[in-house]
């Protein structure tokens, strides 16, 4: 109730959008369902990538290496799954790869005091180099990723089709959003994480080990980018290709900011982006303007929204700044 009072605009827009979606659904069930399915499909890696960003940046570490993290994870997930013949192994290795890349970012920036932006760029370049150098063609997965119909939930009109007829990683993404949101704003870990990202010296004096917590968070946060990578090479498709992230890590970064570093809003932002994308391809050939203009729409919209919403989204106070004990900040 209190939440409703504080977030009237958000609640209002959710209701309006849901109503609009269901009207659309009623008018043209097939197209509506397919477009929302497409939107969520597009959004999954963005949500996961952005969650890695949320955990890292809420802890005070910028991560523009999400693209590279995802790419390495996609590579590791697919090839380990192909080699072992086990999808579970693939997913786990993908997540582990995300964590390893996260650990790299954490160690270089938190321990090594490297500039965080630069560390991210290095991750991206290293990831491209590694994955294309060690790529081998001709590997296949022994089986397809299962598609689950979640009992009851999948029966819900529209929403069931879109979210609950799902592969395991998309489901993981869906569940991760509220979990991370809850963890961030309702648990001890979240309170501490926000404090080290916002004002680390206050956390330090309150007896929180800022360095250790940043190391752990940035490392573990890589699990989401890892899952995103596994999604790309195993669930969305069934094979790794060089450079297959195709800029999704950067989009995730935009969505992270778009979503104001809050998981639920990040989720909404990713869906919005996914929907504009679905809309763009749906309109190709239907309305008579060059398809390039339609496909630009998502990027243009993001830019416009950011420009309009500027000042209302605020980055965590200490993001990007290394924490050195005893230097006051």
């Amino acid at each position: 109730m209190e939440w409703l009072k504080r977030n009237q605009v958000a609640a209002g827009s959710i209701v309006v959008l849901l109503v609009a979606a269901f009207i659309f659904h009623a008018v043209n069930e097939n197209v509506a369902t397919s477009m929302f399915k497409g939107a969520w499909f597009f959004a999954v890696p963005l949500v996961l990538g952005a969650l890695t960003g949320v955990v890292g940046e809420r802890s005070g570490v910028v991560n523009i290496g999400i693209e590279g993290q995802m790419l390495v994870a996609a590579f590791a997930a697919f090839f380990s799954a192909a080699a072992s013949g086990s999808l579970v192994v693939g997913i786990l290795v993908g997540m582990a790869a995300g964590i390893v890349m996260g650990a790299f970012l954490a160690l270089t920036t938190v321990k090594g005091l490297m500039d965080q932006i630069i560390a991210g760029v290095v991750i991206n370049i290293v990831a491209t180099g590694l994955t294309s150098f060690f790529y081998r063609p001709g590997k296949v997965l022994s089986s397809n990723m299962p598609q689950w119909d979640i009992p009851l939930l999948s029966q819900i009109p529209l929403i069931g089709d879109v979210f609950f007829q799902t592969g395991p990683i998309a489901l993981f993404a869906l569940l991760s959003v509220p979990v991370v949101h809850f963890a961030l704003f309702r648990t001890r870990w979240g309170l501490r994480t926000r404090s080290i990202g916002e004002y680390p010296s206050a956390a330090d004096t309150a007896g929180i080990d800022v360095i250790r917590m940043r190391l752990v968070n940035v490392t573990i946060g890589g699990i989401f980018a890892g899952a995103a990578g596994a999604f790309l090479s195993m669930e969305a498709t069934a094979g790794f290709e060089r450079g297959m992230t195709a800029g999704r890590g950067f989009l995730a970064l935009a969505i992270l900011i778009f979503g104001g570093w809050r998981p639920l809003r990040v989720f909404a932002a990713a869906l919005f982006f996914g929907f504009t994308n679905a809309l763009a391809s749906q309109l190709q050939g239907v309305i008579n303007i060059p398809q390039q203009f339609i496909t630009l729409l998502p990027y243009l919209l993001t830019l416009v929204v950011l420009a309009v919403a500027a000042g209302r989204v605020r980055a965590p106070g200490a993001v990007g700044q290394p924490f050195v004990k005893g230097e006051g900040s």
Partner: protein
Amino acid sequence: MRSHVKLSAVVAAGLVAALAGCGGSTGPSTGSGGGGGTNTAASGDCSSAEVFCVGLVTDVGKVDDKGFNQAAWEGVEQVKGELGAQTKFVETTDPKDYAKNIKQFTDAKYDVIVTVGFLMGDATRAAGKQYPNTKFIGFDQFQADPVVPNVTGLIFHEDQAGYAAGYLAGLMTKSNKIGVVLGQEIPPTQAYAAGYENGAKAANPSVTVSKVYHPAGNTAFNDPVWGAGEAKKMLAQGADFIFGAGGNTGNGALQEAAKTAGAGDKIFCIGVDLDQWDTLPAAHPCLITSAEKHEKDGIGELLKQIKSNTIKPGNFFGTAGISAFHDFDSKVPADVKTKVADIVKKLEDGSQATGYKAG
């Protein structure tokens, strides 16, 4: 201090390994080339008349790209034994290196140089003029007048392959909805799309075709996830045939169709460029056929003509159609097979137009 020692150890290990390398032979050692193809290092002298050397320059991309680079290289390798040829490829990483990469082969006095992709057209013609004694095969490169005497363009009618594929889809679709997922909007993809649409409508006037091109950008042919997403949408809107025509982007669409419930029974997919049964095992559950340009055969044919000195400058039109049905042979009704075979024949002899106009 400890980490200082550790780092030194790592660097030292690297240097030792490098020096160990120096200790060995000083000459070139034989390396295996990237990925799918084996890149045989030079063993004979290409400048001698007895040694028949064929070099291949890829367009930006890899020789194992499951697309035209791979098809071209496999075409070369296919006739290698027959012609007693010595072969080698170089992968282009930057389009500004086309001329340079061609020159590596001319410098090494290769007899034939195959260049892949329409983007290399200008560079190939320029090299042809500069090295009149070397033969060039320009894969996907239309030779406009005046032709260069030692350059032959290997051209395919993508619209014909697309038409045959669309015809098949039109005959077999139950939902009367079919889709095509394409890479960047350029003439070859436009030709595939137009042929596919027209073929389907010729077979079944009530069919509707959804088509989608990848948004602009340098990932247009390498975004399988996007292709999968588009296929997902088309399938959800009731399409039962997905034609993936855009490199890895199209392959993503095929993989998505292969994973969909009913794949192989109600849902089918069609590959592109070469017989993707061989290159994309992940699509086997739905891959009924591929809209195939007989690239390997075209390359092989031209190499044989060069060897026998019967090659002509200008354009050589390779054939295009659809690949074998492989595991789906039993699922394609006999009358459909006959009708499709008939259309393919008419396309080849020119009696059936595709309705696609270039440019």
